[in-house]
């Protein structure tokens, strides 16, 4: 049976590297998705989760076992990503055209179990670019809120805890972020 997070945290505190590695394997990919949502750049996302896990390891003794390890880790990941975004202000990466087509093609083929229609591939690539552009137009705080809500499915209370702001702030940021995204996605909505 898989060991609980609390047990792995306890063992990591005793200096067991393998236990900390298991925590990384358990949550690393989710942490990466959150970080990428905020940073929109794979290299930056890698740096951010690397820093987050190092930071988490060094402050493991401060983790209160009553709460969930991932909620605690979220806060570190989100803060590290926001910090990095402010520091670098790097432009989001653009996926090479061929790679974009390949990704879209793979996705559509796997979804429909058949060869994808080229017009669908183009539309898919265009949609990905539009979403990325729309995200670029948001501040890092708005990106964080929409990522935590739409990608991670966190509740308003959990987002407010992670970002250390009020629920009212979360609601207003989410309202603004959705309104902003809507202006870009108008052409893609199905009636």
């Amino acid at each position, binding site marked *: 049976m898989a060991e609980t997070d609390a047990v792995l945290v306890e063992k990591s505190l005793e200096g067991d590297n393998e236990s900390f590695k298991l925590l990384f394997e358990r949550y690393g*990919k989710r942490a990466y*998705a959150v970080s990428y949502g905020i940073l929109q750049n794979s290299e930056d996302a*890698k740096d951010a989760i690397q820093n987050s896990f190092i930071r988490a390891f060094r402050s493991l003794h401060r983790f209160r076992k009553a709460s969930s390890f991932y909620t605690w880790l979220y806060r570190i990941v989100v803060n590290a990503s926001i910090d990095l975004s402010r520091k670098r202000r790097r432009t989001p990466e653009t996926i090479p055209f061929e790679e974009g087509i390949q990704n879209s093609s793979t996705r559509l083929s796997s979804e429909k179990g058949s060869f994808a229609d080229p017009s669908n591939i183009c539309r898919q690539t265009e949609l990905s670019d539009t*979403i990325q552009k729309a995200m670029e137009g948001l501040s890092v705080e708005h990106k964080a809120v929409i990522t935590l809500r739409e*990608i991670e499915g966190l509740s*308003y209370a959990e987002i407010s805890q992670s970002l250390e702001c009020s629920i009212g702030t979360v609601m207003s940021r989410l309202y603004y972020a*959705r309104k902003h995204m809507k202006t870009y*996605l108008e052409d893609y909505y199905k009636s």
Partner: protein
Amino acid sequence: MESSSRCKYYKLVGPFVDNELSDSQKQDMALHVENCAECFNEVNKAQQTGLLIRENLIVEPTNDAMREIWENIHTELTNSHNFKTQQKRSVLKHFNKAKFWISAAAALIVISVGTLFYSFPYKTGNLQSNHCFVESIDSASASIMVFETPKNKMTVFWIFENESSS
């Protein structure tokens, strides 16, 4: 600026889609959405926005990328641990080397301070009238004179080397 003619339920669309309303609010809103084209449209768009973001923004790193990240984390943590141990060791090494000189300097300071405070009455003329002569112990090579200072309640010894011995 928001349109003033907008439906009063408009602001509840987000919390409704996110399932953040209370049960009674949820029921009210569900009833309202059925009858309000504007809110129905907004709920639909909010749900689709979420779906489009999830479909297009979730990026899963490859296993190789994850392995590389873990290796970097592991190296960083191992190095910093070694660094701390190394730091401790290096401090101890320097302390051992310096131990002799630290001890010598400390002894010198103690002797100097002692000399200043309890300077010999004979040489410096510090022997006050209230220094009370206690006794003199004479031997072939030296004489020991013992004084007592009433203030500090301290005994001062002075050893004279007898001229005949030198």
